[in-house]
């Protein structure tokens, strides 16, 4: 099966990103394909590289980044949602005249069309949110 996952909440505040991460691992373990993970609403906050949670806590943002590296996942952050919330990659920061960027490796910023296209291409689309 080919999956598109949509994640609507940021890390820590709600369990949705944790649940999606566990689901994605379980699906990959069973040999399924994750076609795309689309981060929308506050979900874009999963893509920051500036987090530093307590050592004994999980590192949600880094776990996504590492899962993407291991399985060559397509992690997409919605550009419009990211602009409202202050998530920037180097190109977008330059374009907006920002003095810093904060996106973590393994995520890319793109448009909402990626969500619809993901829904069309995948066998199953799942939404994780609040």
């Amino acid at each position, binding site marked *: *099966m080919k*999956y598109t996952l949509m994640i*609507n909440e940021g890390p820590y505040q709600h*369990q*949705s990103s944790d*649940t999606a991460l*566990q*689901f994605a*691992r*379980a*699906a990959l*373990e*069973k040999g*399924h394909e994750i076609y795309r993970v689309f981060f929308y609403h506050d979900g874009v906050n999963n893509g920051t590289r500036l987090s530093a949670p307590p050592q004994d806590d999980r590192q949600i943002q880094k776990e996504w980044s590492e899962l993407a590296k291991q399985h060559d996942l397509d992690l997409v952050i919605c550009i419009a949602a990211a602009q409202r919330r202050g998530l920037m990659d180097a190109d977008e920061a330059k374009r907006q005249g920002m003095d810093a960027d904060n996106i973590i490796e393994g995520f890319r910023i793109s448009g909402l069309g990626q969500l619809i296209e993901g829904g069309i291409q995948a066998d*199953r*689309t*799942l*939404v*994780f*949110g*609040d």
Partner: protein
Amino acid sequence: MAMLHIVNKSPFERVAFESCLNHASAGDSILMIEDAAVGAVKNTRFSESIEAALKDKSVYVLSGDLAARGLSEDRIITGVTAVDYAGFVDLTVDNDTTQSWL
């Protein structure tokens, strides 16, 4: 076309779970995850609604979420099945579509 309904809200706090039950069709499956796991327990204000749903639908609860909230599997309503994340994945395969009740 069978649908997997995924609920993640406590039925004691939000209407989402009740709304899910009101809109699921016969033959559909319902999976309780995250805070919705508390809805799987016997003898609550909500348990009759689950028992009614079991007449023509399958009902599941994510075991990790149940345990996290201090609820052991011997407390769940008869007919509700506990599954792990692998079982969650299987449910998305066995049903044609999924709908999340946020």
